[in-house]
């Protein structure tokens, strides 16, 4: 089972869902916080759900306050960067470029893609953490020697 966990994690990196920042977070796991990455991940998805809701509401109003949208997306990009959510971060960057260009259609299109990437990452990480917990402490509380 530990091998399966390792393979799943590797595929998340190989497919570009996660970057080296995720590994930095894993390095911080220890006996005091064996589930640190899962806890940070849960915080991220709670926080990003709020931001998605704010952006959804702002876009539904149809008035396109690009400054406000850019501000929300700056926060979203920041937390996505902190957890190593590479694909989500890329969509945030694209969205902000469309904001700066005042391109409403580009913003809408990118936001749909962003929500898709965010949802995919959430499911994949939930699956990974569930398996990691089942595999036992070796995989969840690994501190480098």
């Amino acid at each position, binding site marked *: 089972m530990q091998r399966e966990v390792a393979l799943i994690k590797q595929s998340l990196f190989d497919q570009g869902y996660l970057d080296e*920042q995720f590994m*930095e*977070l894993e*390095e*911080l796991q*220890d006996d005091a*916080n064996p589930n*640190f990455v899962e*806890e*940070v991940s849960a*915080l*991220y998805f709670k*926080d990003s759900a709020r931001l998605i809701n704010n952006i959804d509401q702002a876009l539904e109003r149809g008035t396109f306050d690009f400054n406000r949208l850019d501000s929300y997306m*700056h*926060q979203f*990009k*920041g*937390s996505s*960067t*902190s*957890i*190593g959510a590479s694909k989500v971060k890329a969509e945030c960057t694209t969205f902000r470029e469309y904001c700066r260009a005042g391109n409403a259609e580009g913003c809408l299109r990118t936001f749909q893609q962003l929500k898709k990437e965010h949802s995919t990452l959430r499911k994949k990480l939930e699956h990974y953490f569930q398996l990691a917990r089942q595999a036992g402490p070796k995989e969840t509380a690994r*501190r*480098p*020697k």
Partner: protein
Amino acid sequence: MTRDQIAEELPNLAESKLTALVVDDSFVNQTIHQKLLNRLGIENDVVTNGKEAVDVYCSGRNYDLILMDMDMPIMNGIQATKRLREMGIESKIAGVTTRANEGEKKEFMEAGLNDFQEKPLTISKLLSILHKLNFYVQT
């Protein structure tokens, strides 16, 4: 990085009893930054914006190091840094932000920072801050 490796990097860190204040409105970043500081044995507190940081200092608390985010509601990192320096606060302040273009970095540095690191913060970047600010030097 193991504690032994960290101790090699900063031999006096274990005995230095440094304190730090994390100033960031993101719960994700607060959690990560606090964990990084804990890993290095640095006692720390957290506030969610620049005004809270100023208020903490007004209440008489003091910290060796402040990790200051730039974009925060109510009072941002630039405003908070300027205010703290106006108050005569000499704590080392390291700006930690995703904003990295030269103009924004310059404005933040000129507010009174001692150092600047681009997010996301890592153990290496935090060690770099501590090295740069001479926290490892035994006085």
